């Protein structure tokens, strides 16, 4: 068996000699050789070789734009690779390109980030969707029998869901579990039907929607799937998850494989190096530690540009939230100092995820007061228009839909909030706005730095940076963030941390950072409050501000009483 040559420099010793564990002489579940894909002049995948062993969990890592999702789409038959690539499934060659849907016939099952669930259909209909599509076009469906077997399937994976419920009404967590159960079942049926041993479950960013306790259940689900003989391709930004569940990891950068390691044998830092590309990271760390001049300039510029049209409002005010109550929150009160970054940690369902939207007026609140400096606002009376006037900013989790206009250009999105300030004497100063946007683009490191590109062409990380730029240009007193780095690659993530920290420090802006990535909170925030079942149950600061402490505190309510 030829040793796989990854065709990449710098890692010859480590990866090339990887043999399958001696016990198994099975061919790999899936192997690709020499896969490339071009989009016009952009080489998204460059001669990629990848091998997923039988019964192995392989992690696939890489920044946005590294080619991860392109590779997945090639396997799914959505994209046709360039001629010359080869695909082997269970040791047998399969002709490329694959037809859409063919993947399921050769033992590949996919769960995408968007879950591919139809929200209008019931749980049962979504669960059996794959079967429907693969089966005959005219076989009569016995819904009663389907119901019974659907319930049995859910039981097998220990997932409790109402089969007749409209899928769109389920919590995101449950939707994710449904998607995974469906995929795992499709694989099981494939193995039974075909008699083959190999099958591969491809999970694309599965932990994004899941709080930590659910991540463990997900891993149990994965281990069950592996125990039955399937292999798993685990694509994720979540390094902790990858280290917990995978046997090996493969790193893609700029369309090429740059590293192939046994998970247990590589440190997280080294992984980050591979993903981001070592030189960039070194600069990153140094910068983070010494309040970089660049960032000061970045934020300073955007603020200064506005100061010219400024209103002379004093920078920095304390923020006080009092007696905030609604469906999920009970009498919540806390304070954010001017220039402080306050983290809010809570499991999904604790009510923490409501906070940014309530304070912004995006969701109607029951009751509560928001004090900004000397002003007192009734939370129930807030609305987005009012909040923007009061210089409160919201960066929502669903940035693509709620934060940015996908069909407008990058510069149009960035200047959206400050356009009116450039409309003088009946003339719209478009040139000024474009210049402003260009400066923001370069300072906020948005790539590619093309102001007239349509928003939808930018990756998740860059869209988030654009969104942040848009809000920071409006000089907020209070910045509300919800899952700001969800689906954002490592490099952009660090950029975002730096931008927010600088803005908070320089402009004495109060920041509320709500996320289920507790490690992020530990890294970025000055203080963290923990919300459990709608109540403020703990505060952490200083030395006790670690990921473990936060997780423990967030879980404590339930754990203590079990």
């Amino acid at each position, binding site marked *: 068996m030829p040793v796989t040559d990854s065709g990449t420099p710098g890692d010859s010793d480590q990866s090339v000699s990887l043999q399958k564990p001696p016990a198994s002489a099975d061919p790999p579940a899936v192997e690709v050789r020499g896969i490339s894909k071009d989009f016009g002049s952009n080489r998204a995948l460059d001669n990629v070789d990848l091998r997923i062993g039988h019964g192995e969990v392989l992690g696939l890592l890489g920044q946005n734009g590294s080619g991860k999702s392109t590779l997945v789409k090639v396997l*799914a038959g*959505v994209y046709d690779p360039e001629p010359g690539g080869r695909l082997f499934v269970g040791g047998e060659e399969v002709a490329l390109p694959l*037809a*859409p*849907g*063919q*993947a*399921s016939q050769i033992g590949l099952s996919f769960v*995408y980030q968007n879950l*591919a*669930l*139809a*929200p*209008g*259909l019931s749980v049962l*209909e979504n669960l059996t*969707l*794959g079967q*429907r*599509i693969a*089966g005959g*076009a*005219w*076989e*009569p*469906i016995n819904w009663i029998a389907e119901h019974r077997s659907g319930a049995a399937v859910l039981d097998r994976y220990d997932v*409790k*869901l*109402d089969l007749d419920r409209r899928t769109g*009404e*389920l919590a995101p967590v449950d939707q994710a579990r449904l998607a995974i159960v469906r995929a795992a079942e499709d694989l099981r049926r494939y193995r039974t039907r075909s008699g083959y041993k190999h099958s591969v479950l491809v999970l694309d960013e599965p932990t994004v929607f899941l709080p930590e306790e659910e991540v463990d259940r997900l891993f149990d689900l994965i281990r069950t799937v592996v125990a039955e003989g399937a292999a798993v391709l685990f694509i994720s930004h979540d390094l902790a998850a990858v280290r917990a569940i995978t046997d090996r990891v493969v790193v893609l950068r700029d369309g090429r494989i740059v590293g192939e390691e046994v998970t247990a044998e590589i440190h997280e830092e080294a992984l980050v190096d591979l993903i981001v590309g070592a030189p960039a990271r070194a600069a990153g760390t140094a910068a983070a530690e010494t309040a970089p001049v660049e960032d000061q300039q970045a934020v300073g510029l955007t603020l200064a540009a506005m100061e010219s049209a400024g209103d002379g409002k004093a920078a920095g005010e304390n923020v006080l939230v009092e007696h905030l109550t609604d469906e*999920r929150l009970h009498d919540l*009160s*806390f*304070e954010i*100092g001017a220039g402080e970054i306050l983290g809010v940690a809570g499991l999904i369902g604790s009510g923490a995820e*409501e906070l940014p*939207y309530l304070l912004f007026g*995006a*969701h109607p609140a029951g009751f509560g007061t928001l004090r900004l400096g000397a002003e007192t606002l009734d939370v129930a009376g807030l609305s987005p228009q009012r909040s923007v006037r009061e210089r409160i900013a919201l960066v*929502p*989790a*669903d940035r693509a839909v*709620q934060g940015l206009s996908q069909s407008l250009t990058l510069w149009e999105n960035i200047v959206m909030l400050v356009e009116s300030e450039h409309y003088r004497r009946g003339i719209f100063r478009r040139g000024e706005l474009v210049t402003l946007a260009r400066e923001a683009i370069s300072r906020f490191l948005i790539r590619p730095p093309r102001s007239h590109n349509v928003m939808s062409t930018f990756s998740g990380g860059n869209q988030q940076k654009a969104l942040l730029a848009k809000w920071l240009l409006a000089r907020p007193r209070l910045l509300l963030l*919800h899952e700001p780095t969800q689906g954002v690659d490592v490099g952009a993530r660090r950029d975002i941390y730096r931008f927010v920290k600088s803005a908070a420090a320089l402009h004495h802006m109060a920041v509320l950072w709500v996320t289920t990535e507790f490690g992020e909170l530990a890294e970025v925030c000055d203080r963290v*409050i923990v919300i*459990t*079942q709608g*109540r*403020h*149950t*703990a*505060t952490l*600061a200083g030395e006790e501000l670690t990921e473990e402490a936060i997780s423990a505190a967030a879980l*404590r*309510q*339930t*754990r203590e*009483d*079990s």
Partner: protein
Amino acid sequence: MSAPAPVDPAPVDPAPVDEARQEEHRAERQAPSALLRTGLQRYAIVIVFAALIAGFGIDMPSLFLTIGNLSNILGSQAVLFILVMAVLLPTVVGDFVDLSLGSSLGLSAMTLAVLNVQHGTPVLVACLAGIGAAVVVGLVNVFFVVYFDNDPFIVTLGTMTIVQGVIYIVSGNNSVGIVSTNLSNWIFTNEFLSMPLEFYYGLAIFLVVWYVLSFTPTGQKALVIGQSREVARLSGVRVNRQRAWAYIVGAAIAGVAGIAYAGTNGTVDPTAGSALILPAYAAVFLGATAIKPGRINPLGALIAVYFLATGTVGLELLGAQSYYQQIFYGAALVASVTIPKVTREKFFKRRRTA
């Protein structure tokens, strides 16, 4: 800076993890009162229908509650009912408006009439020609909407107008009649259980459509395409193929409606069908609020058609002039999209997180 003291956890319900999850799932399975509300939403139209019948019945028992009247209501709407089945298909797959189906009906009817009356073509052949003509329109739509990926509304608006023009040309802007009595017998004159045969043809088409949409994988695929096209595509469904078939079969059914029209009226005027397209859509969308709310479904459409028919016949019997029908249909269309919003706000206090 005051750090709020951590709240004493004791007052909070101390359910351990597993029980908490069970609680959650029990809550997710709807409570009896919520089930009642869902039921209300689903069958609201049936309830209003019953009330309507009761209302008219009490007001004019001798006129309204007769077999003759029932036959009138069910029979007179047969053509519309068949057109509704035609309209249902492209709507189910998400191509929300195929405006040309009304004109296809007219083209089919006029083709049949011209061939049969002016050229002496045997009725059966003329019928097939009529349906064929409608299918041609369907193919044209497929070409421009599916193949070129254009907006269905805009394209079918265009084809509708074109077909209407063709009808005028073919008919010389005259009404054409009288179509062979053989046809009229088979469609309208002969009755079974006091109902004209065309009602049963409509019923048969309904049963086939209902069966396919509810009990076959093809129907499921169509449903997914209409609800979440991208999900369908990612799941390997051949989206464009299904859409194309929806247009073609829909057009064929519209052709059948045209045959029924010719048989019912005997004479075909050039504007046949154009007035029926709006009521057909009103019925389809109103039907989507019932039985399976939020989904285009044939049973709901059936109820909606006859609900609307009952309303208009009742109004006629009360002496209202026929243009009240327009108002009734239009109001039904608006109500059909507003009702779900109202019932949702009012009865379902679900909060959706961002």
